[in-house]
């Protein structure tokens, strides 16, 4: 291509007013203080830049500059010179609202913690004064002060719980927040009445402390999801979803995919992945649609051929007209399947909700029975109600509210280190229950990159020469050869013949790399194809010497070991692939997976998963690619490698990074450990309450006992959660 493309990032630039512009960039590989200083210094050195600040937590750079001649593309180039790959970043609405929610929770937590400390400061003299010689007037004064602090603080800090409880009640449901809200409101109301009546006990301290502990749990939960969202957002930006758009017949510009409209014409060069759906209007090539269909055989593309986002262009340049979201396309079909599958998933009930559904009626019934019991025994209504409220306070699910988020936070931190990102908060519970793992083959068990499988058969000098020649080709198969040969310096004077191969002169002999027919090795290649029908063949000739390279997607390096380990943990494994039978059979045999199906469509995959579900299996689907998105959503729990098309990234419960398959195993181990600890924590919380409830029913609960029970059980549960950091290796 002779045309030089310009880059247009204006879509991402924000105008701050008063002549200042702002852009956020996601940067790959920023991990230390050194990088941070290097990037900030490097970017600040550009003229007109007024701010360059790296955020090491979410790996982004915020830049501000004076409006004028400076092109934002310059920042990207500057970062590339410094050795970092960067890409403009647009905060998704979901991420922005999570960040806002997280700040709100932190404000609530701050208010509640402030109030707890000050109310406690007032409560301790009252507790000690009640057994010594405090004047009733002094006690009332302290109670009134406590009320003055606790009531407004609870009204503000309790909002997250009151709102959620109200919306649950409006839909005639019960969640964890209903007993919490009732407990807090009753405790505060009763304390106020008791204070007015100059009574000995008030429970302002217990109510506000309860809110503080619960807000800690909420904040941890929120923060875990926010971190994952930020990393996933960066990865989406770093996948550099750009397209080369024709401004006119001769003028092209690189724009973000978000700025592409249906009807635009884009250029797809050899070796590029298509970022849009559309139809070829000009050009001739072969495309690899393995990300979309799972099929590894290349499809010829010419005028009229539909191409989908995620397709890899292999040989020639194509002009593609971007299609409107037409009904009946592959994408529309997949989206429809996806919606259905996601609806089915939402019926799953989280462990915490299940616990609260059991817990709330028991607690409320106990309180009611306590009140009635005391009245029947001859106590006054006032005393009976005070005792009943004490039961509610002491059983308020404080530790219960912490039991699950603390474990989730610790476990997700551990998974993060193992290269697994959590997309859904309740994925840990579902993952721990999985007993049947369904793998997609292409891009999941195999690596999305191509590799040379017969490197050992080729003399080293030939290999390195072929690699250097391959550097001059745009063809993805050729780049696999170049990479396998570790080639660095291209041959001078190499000529690429589009759709055929590359040729050059070396030591006076003509060398060629490309199609077997281009190198005069067609007969040799035909024989080879029978041995390994899956591989793409690239021929190399030096004068009369001919060599063949077999290139294909290799298995992930540790795939066999991980499959064996999964089996040892009692999980069944299975392959469902859209690829041809020969390819799938070979992979299944190599990995020792007995159960496999080839040539499966997205609808067939869902049918198979439904069938397994009816047999009572909890299916974990590990897959990538657009064709897997609906089956990922249909499965009990799902996981995707990060290289996948962006559609599947958003539906998988977990995503993993890097070449090995080990994160799949690590995720299962951590999830099982975490579920074990969650259950243990729930039991601990309930046992702790069970000790205190008889005291409450007997009318012996003083505010001191309520406070001790609440903080004791909460701290115990938090400490137990820390054990989710490590897994005992069996």
């Amino acid at each position, binding site marked *: 291509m002779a045309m030089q493309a310009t880059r247009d990032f204006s879509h991402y630039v924000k105008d701050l007013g008063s002549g200042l512009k702002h852009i956020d960039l996601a940067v790959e590989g920023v991990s*230390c*203080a050194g990088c*941070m*200083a290097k990037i900030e*210094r490097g970017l600040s050195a550009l003229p007109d830049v007024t701010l360059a600040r*790296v*955020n*090491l*937590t*979410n790996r982004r750079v915020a830049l501000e500059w004076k409006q004028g001649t400076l092109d934002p593309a310059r920042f990207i180039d500057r970062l590339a010179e410094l050795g970092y790959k960067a890409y403009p970043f647009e905060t998704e609405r979901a991420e922005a609202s999570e960040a806002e929610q997280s*700040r709100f929770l*932190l*404000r609530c937590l*701050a*208010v509640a913690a*402030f109030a707890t*400390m*000050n109310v406690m*400061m007032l409560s301790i003299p009252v507790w000690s004064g009640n057994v010594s010689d405090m004047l009733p007037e*002094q006690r009332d*004064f302290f109670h009134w*002060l406590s009320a003055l*602090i606790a009531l407004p603080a609870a009204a503000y800090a309790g909002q997250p719980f009151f709102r959620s409880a109200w919306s649950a009640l409006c839909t005639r449901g019960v969640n964890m927040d209903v007993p919490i809200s009732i407990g807090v409101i009753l405790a505060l109301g009763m304390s106020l009445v008791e204070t007015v009546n100059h009574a000995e006990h008030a429970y302002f301290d217990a109510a506000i402390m309860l809110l503080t502990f619960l807000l800690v749990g909420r904040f941890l939960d929120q923060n875990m999801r926010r971190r994952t969202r930020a990393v996933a957002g960066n990865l989406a930006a770093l996948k550099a979803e750009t397209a080369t758009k024709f401004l006119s017949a001769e003028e092209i510009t690189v724009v973000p995919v978000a700025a592409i409209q249906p009807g635009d014409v884009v250029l797809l060069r050899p070796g590029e992945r298509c970022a849009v759906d559309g139809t070829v209007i000009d050009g001739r090539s072969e495309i690899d649609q393995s990300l979309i269909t799972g099929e590894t055989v290349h499809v010829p593309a010419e005028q009229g051929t539909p191409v989908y986002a995620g397709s890899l262009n292999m040989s020639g340049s194509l002009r593609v007209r971007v299609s409107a979201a037409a009904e009946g396309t592959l994408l529309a079909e997949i989206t429809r399947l996806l919606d259905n599958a996601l609806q089915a998933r939402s019926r799953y009930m989280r462990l915490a909700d299940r616990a609260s559904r059991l817990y709330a009626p028991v607690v409320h019934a106990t309180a009611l029975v306590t009140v009635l019991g005391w009245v029947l025994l001859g106590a006054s209504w006032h005393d009976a109600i005070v005792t009943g409220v004490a039961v509610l306070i002491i059983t308020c699910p404080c530790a219960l509210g912490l039991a699950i988020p603390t474990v989730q936070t610790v476990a997700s931190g551990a998974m993060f280190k193992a290269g697994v990102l959590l997309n859904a908060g309740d994925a840990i519970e579902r993952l721990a229950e999985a007993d049947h793992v369904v793998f997609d083959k292409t891009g999941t068990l195999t690596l999305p990159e191509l590799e040379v499988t017969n490197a050992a058969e080729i003399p080293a000098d030939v290999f390195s020469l072929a690699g250097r020649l391959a550097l001059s080709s745009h063809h993805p198969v050729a780049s696999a050869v170049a990479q396998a040969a570790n080639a660095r310096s291209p041959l001078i004077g190499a000529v690429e013949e589009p759709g055929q191969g590359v040729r050059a002169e070396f030591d006076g002999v003509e060398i060629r790399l490309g199609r077997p027919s281009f190198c005069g090795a067609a007969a040799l290649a035909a024989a080879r194809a029978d041995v390994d029908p899956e591989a793409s063949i690239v021929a190399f000739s030096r004068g009369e010497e001919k060599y063949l390279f077999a290139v294909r997607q290799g298995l992930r390096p540790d795939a066999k070991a991980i499959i064996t380990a999964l089996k040892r943990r009692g999980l069944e494994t299975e392959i469902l692939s859209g690829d041809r039978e020969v390819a799938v059979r070979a992979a299944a045999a190599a990995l020792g997976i007995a159960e496999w199906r080839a040539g499966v469509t997205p609808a067939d995959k869902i049918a198979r998963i439904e069938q397994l579900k009816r047999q009572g299996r909890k299916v974990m689907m590990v897959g990538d690619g657009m064709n897997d998105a609906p089956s990922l959503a249909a499965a009990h729990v799902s996981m995707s490698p990060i290289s996948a098309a962006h559609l599947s990234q958003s539906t998988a419960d977990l995503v993993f990074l890097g070449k090995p398959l080990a994160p799949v195993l690590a995720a299962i181990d951590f999830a099982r450990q975490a579920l074990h600890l969650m259950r243990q924590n729930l039991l601990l919380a309930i046992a702790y309450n069970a000790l205190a409830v008889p005291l409450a029913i007997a009318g012996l609960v003083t505010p001191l006992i309520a406070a001790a029970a609440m903080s004791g059980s909460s701290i115990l549960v938090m400490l137990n959660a820390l054990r989710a950091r490590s897994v005992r290796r069996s």
Partner: protein
Amino acid sequence: MEVLVILVPLALSLGLAGLVAFLWSLKSGQYEDLDGAAWRAISDDD
């Protein structure tokens, strides 16, 4: 016990000052990049 008239408001206003300081630090974005802040403290260029 008249000292309470001074001590209680003093204690409360100190607590309130702490809360206001925290909310201000939250608002000014000091918790946006906890990892980076840890490293900035030991970098020597500014």
